């Protein structure tokens, strides 16, 4: 069959079956052969079989587009290394997750990445979107990356920031333009003046380092889970925060808090509030706000005025002491 194959002259049901057999890699490449192919693929995939759990967009050096299905990952990596063009890899993770990776070469990684992302967004449906934003890789194009993502989806469920540039501008631009609805992870250094610009409720924040997380900033976050490292909060401020929580003046939906302690010598300042030290031999069952249960052994209880209990204990991460609080209802 040397001549080009007239696929589109076949009955629709046959084309559909051929597409069904293809992997997402082939469907994406196929959709990118022409605008007409994309239109046809879109109409063929309209009736299901094109839904995936999550789309992950990573602006790493080898920019990635990951299509996450049920226990199957398809990673499309755009690389500037010509020797990797067309390379494929298959990995299994934890014996349940299958990861297929395909590298494609481009001398303009970002342009090609955008082309693929646009095609992927047009032909597949995703329940969730995660953006891993590496601010150092394309420093002059960070804003256009944000504008590009915004043109595809005005809101995303999760985002994570990485980088060493110590600049707030691109992160602020990202958060001012893309509405994040579930999770924000800051894994980069921002200035002490940085303020989190969104005031919508998020399920989870992870901030490392949290040099910019002042008490005022912490009180303004709307969320239920916080993991904060390297914050400048003093024990006195942590005490105030806990008192505000106990009197229902802040963080009504708090489920979990992990935050660094800057002065482990003066923990009594934190506990200058009504609290109860529980015998470490006593095991209790707490009911979490999502109705799951959690076993609790010992620790220190503080009570909110509506009966919810914050169970506090302390951990170490390298040389940093961490306060951990789990909120539950203990009957």
């Amino acid at each position, binding site marked *: 069959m040397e001549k080009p194959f007239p696929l*589109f*002259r*076949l009955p629709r049901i046959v084309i559909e079956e051929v597409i069904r*057999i*293809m992997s997402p890699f082939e469907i994406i490449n196929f959709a990118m*052969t022409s605008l*007409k*192919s994309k239109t046809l693929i879109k*109409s063929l995939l309209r009736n299901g079989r094109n839904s995936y759990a999550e789309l992950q967009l990573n602006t790493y050096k080898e920019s990635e587009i990951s299509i996450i299905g049920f226990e199957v990952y398809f990673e499309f990596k755009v690389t500037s290394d010509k020797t990797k063009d067309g390379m494929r890899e298959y990995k299994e993770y934890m014996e349940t997750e299958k990861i297929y990776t395909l590298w494609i070469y481009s001398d303009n990684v970002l342009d090609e990445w955008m082309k693929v992302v646009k095609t992927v967004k047009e032909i597949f449906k995703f329940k969730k979107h995660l953006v891993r934003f590496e601010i150092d890789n394309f420093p002059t194009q960070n804003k256009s990356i944000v504008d590009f993502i915004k043109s595809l989806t005005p809101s995303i469920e999760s985002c994570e920031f990485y980088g060493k540039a110590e600049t707030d501008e691109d992160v602020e631009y990202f958060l001012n333009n893309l509405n994040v609805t579930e999770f924000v992870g800051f894994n980069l250094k921002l200035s002490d003046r940085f303020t989190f610009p969104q005031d919508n409720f998020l399920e989870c924040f992870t901030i490392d380092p949290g040099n910019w997380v002042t008490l005022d900033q912490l009180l303004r976050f709307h969320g239920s889970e916080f993991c904060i490292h390297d914050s400048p909060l003093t024990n006195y401020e942590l005490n105030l925060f806990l008192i505000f929580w106990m009197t229902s003046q802040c963080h009504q939906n708090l489920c979990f808090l992990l935050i660094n302690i800057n002065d482990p010598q003066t923990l009594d300042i934190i506990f200058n509030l009504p609290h109860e030290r529980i015998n470490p031999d006593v095991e209790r069952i707490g009911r979490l706000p999502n109705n799951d249960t959690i076993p609790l052994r010992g620790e220190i209880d503080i009570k909110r005025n509506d009966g919810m209990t914050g169970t506090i204990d302390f951990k170490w991460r390298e040389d940093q002491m961490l306060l951990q609080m789990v909120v539950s209802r203990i009957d």
Partner: protein
Amino acid sequence: MTSPASSSEVKYLIESSEGNTFDVSGAALRQSNTFNAMFLNIGADGPIPFTDYNEATLKKVFEYCEHSVNEENYSGPKHQDDLSKWDLNFFNEMDQKMFIDVINASNFLDIERLTSYCCERIARMLRGKNTQEMIKVITLPTAEELEAKQKVEEKKAAAAKKVAEKAAETAEKTETLEELPVQQLVQTTRNKLTRKYLSFSNE
């Protein structure tokens, strides 16, 4: 000559687009869902006209059906690597035109196994290829073809919408028992029983 009997000895006459006729065994024909739906139970008085397809194509299709008569019942697509030597020869000896004719005929006759292997073979042409390589392998549709295909789709969508609207209209008019909320259903039943009991005791 033709009968609805299920014996594999029964032969059916098939008529091609050239008007030629040839024999096909009942067992081979029964792999075609189209045949099963149209003729199996009622039989056919004369040659069965599959006149959209030429003799060579139909013979090729039924050659496949005759060969796979004794294979286990079809249970979903097989990987191309699992095909037998005979299957591979069957596909390899076809030129592109014949292959396309066979797919079309197999699709019309609704022979699942053959259609599925053909699709797998097409998908294999594209497997592992990048966009540029795919462009060389397939003929992209012209604007006219695309337009024609879209028109067909639109027509189908309009027809489906009409059917759905009609169904919705009918559903509105008919209040079925299944649609009643459970509590209402219980109440209705109780009322009926009470009425029955009362009328019984009145008697």
